């Protein structure tokens, strides 16, 4: 099992009122609960079921993911820059585990 590792590509700085694109990727097998292993046993469902992006404590974008999302889920989304601050990205796994990442953004 490879380690579950979230990544995000966010510009370090942006102009005021610019719409930036944020790209995120988390390394995760996304077991759909339908695949069998080599012994014929079903691998139980284990997926990332929620992604949330917060900026300065406000929720700006969320996604509810289902088993039909590929392994290593990639999500890109827009954000309009209004102020400097910190992004807090979180991925929630079945069973409640959370993976988090914070990144700061400067206004030029």
């Amino acid at each position: 099992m490879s380690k579950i590792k979230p990544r995000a590509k966010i510009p370090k700085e942006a102009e005021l009122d610019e719409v930036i694109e944020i790209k995120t990727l988390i390394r995760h097998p996304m077991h759909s609960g339908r695949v069998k292993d080599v012994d014929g046993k079903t691998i139980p469902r284990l997926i990332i079921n929620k992604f949330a992006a917060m900026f300065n404590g406000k929720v700006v974008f969320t996604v509810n993911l289902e088993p039909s999302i590929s392994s290593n889920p990639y999500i890109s989304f827009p954000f309009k820059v209004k102020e400097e601050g910190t992004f807090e990205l979180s991925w929630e796994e079945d069973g409640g585990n959370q993976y988090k990442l914070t990144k700061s953004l400067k206004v030029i």
Partner: protein
Amino acid sequence: MIRTEIGGIVNISRRKAVRMIAVSSALFCSGFGDVLAGKPEVSDQINNVISGSQAREVDVFLDVPEIAENGNQVKVAFEIESPMSESDFVKEVYIMADGNPAPNVAKFNFTPYSGECFASTRMRLSKTQDVYLVAKFNDGTHSITQSTIKVTIGGCGG
């Protein structure tokens, strides 16, 4: 520029063409909301989402490949025309696939902080099928579009 991934200068004519097709199908489908989906689960889901709401005519651009060689990683991107202001924004976008064991793929929740309405992800498709996008606006109206994807190798492990 932020949109280089979806379509650079080279792609503009193709993109416009695809967009026109997407828009025309959106207009077509919005008038026949109840009968558009082939599979009962998907039409049930869509009817659940849009029940009691009006259709809105707006540019919806669903960017999916025509042919997916590998059903495990199928890019799905969309772009919806909207001012994304406090009074008028896209609230939810549902992606559904009618040939998968479970039709729901993802639900994107936007806020006015987004500034524009676009996003992309990757999905699994088990076989050749239709993919639907249902957008819900903050005033309760909705918009639907669909696209058929041919899948060479299925991606649901079965």
